[in-house]
């Protein structure tokens, strides 16, 4: 993104290899930055938690190096757009798309509770709770898109 005059929308873009050790640093940076930009610590906490959960998924399921996290604040819409992009495989896309459809189409509390019950039975180290947690804790809309071998998960927060 180029620097221009009269910037109205706040924008952050971070690109890094999918390394677990970066996640806490990104979460902490976003929390601090957004607490100032939004003048709302609680919203900054929720958004940085969501970024952390999306990045955890990206690191766990990426097929290759490279992860991009972007945050765009659009005050005129009272919305904040958070997205995480990483390389993935069509098999993983399908699983992720179905998961997001399931989460978006249900009551956030009921879906999260159902996912918690499922997590109790999982033995593979994963929880599959992150997206349901984001939806429940923020009531934000979660979107999914692909472009060649890139998968992008976006979360749209209503700041009203």
């Amino acid at each position, binding site marked *: 993104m180029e620097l221009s005059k009269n910037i109205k929308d706040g924008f952050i873009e971070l690109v890094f290899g999918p390394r*677990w050790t970066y*996640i*806490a640093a990104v*979460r902490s940076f976003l929390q601090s930055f957004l607490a100032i930009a939004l003048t709302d*610590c*609680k919203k900054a*906490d*929720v958004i940085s*938690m969501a970024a*952390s*959960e999306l990045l*955890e998924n990206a*690191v*766990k399921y990426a097929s290759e190096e490279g992860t991009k996290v972007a945050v765009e604040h659009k005050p005129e819409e009272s919305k904040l757009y958070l997205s995480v992009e990483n390389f993935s495989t069509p098999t993983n896309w399908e699983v992720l798309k179905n998961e997001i459809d399931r989460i978006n189409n249900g009551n956030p*509390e009921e879906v*999260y*509770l159902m996912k*918690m*019950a499922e*997590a*109790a039975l*999982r033995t593979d*180290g*994963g*929880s599959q*709770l*992150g997206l349901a*947690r984001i939806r*429940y*804790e923020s009531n934000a809309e979660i979107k999914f898109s692909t472009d060649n071998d890139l998968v992008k998960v976006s979360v749209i927060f209503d700041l009203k």
Partner: protein
Amino acid sequence: MNKFGLENVVTEKANVELTDLDNGVKVNFSGDIDIQNPEPIFVPFFEQIHNNIIENGIKYVELDFSKLTFLNSSGIKTLIKWITKVTPLPADKKYNFKVIANSQITWQETSLKMLSMLAPGLIEIQIQ
């Protein structure tokens, strides 16, 4: 050392300590739990606590999260695994949890409230 003789769990960014109460036990969480796979660290510790609680007929456990600044969803799963061990127990073996949450830490109110819904009647939440 606690009454069960269990070692506390200390990781690079988090401490989980078991302490004694007159009427039960208390688990104090502090720091950040955000490692990729917390299960091999925390699940055996919680299982040991659970087994000792059953053996000793203890009926009350406090889980104090007031100094835990972050808990990822994999960490939440380790707590779910503990709580869902209690729900199928017969009534005389069941024990109660009191979850202490910090109102200044945003995720705690929402995430910890959901834990109580996993085991209705067994978990009381106190938000400080």
